[in-house]
């Protein structure tokens, strides 16, 4: 785990914005675990906060426990299919926990949350997401959104009903088609990506992506790559300068070193037998 902690730099920043009274976003990042989680809660009163808070704390705790007790011991030697299964199982469990809380307590009725999770292991990254919280990658000057929103607007874009230019002005921005905790079963989207040295990953809530153009985000990450904390802070400032209509949350991850799996003779033997 030491390897991960030195290979990854992670910073988080979350801000209620200028309009909302409370912050319904929740963030978690731990370089040692190689785990970054961002959730944007929804639901009346403080239910949104409860849902997003449950999502990040439960996932982080379960994941940490899994890492500590796993026979493979550390994230560096984890295999992709094992990691996928584990992530999906943990997300399903948290989904059920939030769903049951919402069912059993009237004040939490209908609560739910978006989710984006990035899990780093063996010079790779698994990204699982639900809803319109996003993950972007800056690699060698090229800034790209890796997740595709689960939202009505994205569906309209896909069907060609609305152009990307028009979509910026849509009033349907905040309708998500998948979320954690709103149903007993959840269809989590998960993908794997290779990771290169000096990649910068951004996980954010729509409070950031709705207020800022991609080019502004990219410019900030490029200019302030050597000071991630300042970059995160500046992104939040800019979103607030543009109106800060929603809670703004940011997790930045920079790959500073190699974190290949440590393959001992036993793993090598296993790999050969497969």
């Amino acid at each position, binding site marked *: 785990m030491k390897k991960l902690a030195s290979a990854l730099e992670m910073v988080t920043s979350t801000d209620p914005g200028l309009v909302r009274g409370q912050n319904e976003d929740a963030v978690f990042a731990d370089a040692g675990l190689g785990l970054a989680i961002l959730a944007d809660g929804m639901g009346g009163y403080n239910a949104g906060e409860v849902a997003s808070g449950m999502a990040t704390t439960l996932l982080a705790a379960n994941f940490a426990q899994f890492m500590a007790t796993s026979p493979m011991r550390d994230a560096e030697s984890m295999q992709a299919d094992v990691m996928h299964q584990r992530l999906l199982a943990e997300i399903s469990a948290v989904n059920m926990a939030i769903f049951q809380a919402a069912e059993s307590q009237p004040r939490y009725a209908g609560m739910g949350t978006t989710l984006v999770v990035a899990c780093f292991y063996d010079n790779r990254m698994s990204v699982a997401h639900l809803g319109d919280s996003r993950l972007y990658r800056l690699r060698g000057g090229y800034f790209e959104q890796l997740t595709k929103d689960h939202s009505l607007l994205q569906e309209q874009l896909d069907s060609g009903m609305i152009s990307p230019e028009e979509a910026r*002005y849509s009033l349907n921005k*905040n309708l998500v088609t998948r979320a954690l905790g709103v149903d007993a079963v959840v269809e989590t989207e998960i993908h794997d990506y290779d990771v290169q040295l000096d990649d910068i990953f951004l996980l954010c809530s729509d409070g950031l992506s709705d*207020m800022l153009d991609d080019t502004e985000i990219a410019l900030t990450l490029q200019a302030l790559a050597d000071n991630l904390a300042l970059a995160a802070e500046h992104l939040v400032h800019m979103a607030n300068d543009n*109106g800060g209509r929603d809670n703004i949350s940011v997790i930045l991850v920079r790959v500073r070193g190699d974190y290949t799996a440590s393959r001992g003779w036993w793993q090598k033997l296993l790999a050969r037998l497969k």
Partner: protein
Amino acid sequence: MAKMILSMDGLVLKEIQLNKERLTIGRKPHNDIQIDNLAISGEHAVIVTILNDSFLEDMNSTNGTLVNGQPIKKHFLRNNDVVELGKYRLKYMAELQVGAGTPSEYEKSSAIRSSAIRPQDLQLVEHGTRSNVAPAAAAPAPSAMPAAAVQLLNGANAGKELDLTKTLTTLGKPGLQVAVIAKRPHGYFITHVEGLQFPIVNGQALDAQAYRLNDHDVIEIAGIKMEFFLKS
């Protein structure tokens, strides 16, 4: 709910709630909005409404459909758009106070957010450019900040000016000392990015906090002195 206001020669004739997913406009009586005028085609246009967004489509009418003076085939309606059919005008008024009716379980506190969209912002968007740079309905007010630049005072490039047109301008030598000047609506701010030494402004070393620059401040980064000044 959004609505259209039908008028002719400045006289308001009717207010139409966009409460149907598909609302047809034309001369023939089966249309939802019937305009009995020969300049209007039998089936002239249709407005498709999906939750808070409405789209206008011309149904290959003889005399066409204009939005804000431009002929359109299909158009995503925005607040205060003026649709012209012959001598008739339809003004589109977006609903800003959403939250009526039962919000779907997937709706993310849209009541709060939508009411936060102040009408003046939408006005701004309409008058502003439609460039990709303007973020969403949240287009910021055109920055009142005057343009600014830094002029190098020593070194090989002494006398050279660097315009601060970008939202972020980095200064210094990577690996040694870097600072950044951020252009924000209420001023220009300098912040330390990396290096052991912090930028010096008017002889005083800064701390990790952002510092708001004043006209004619002298900045020193990595041994290079430069003057910040506003252009007006």
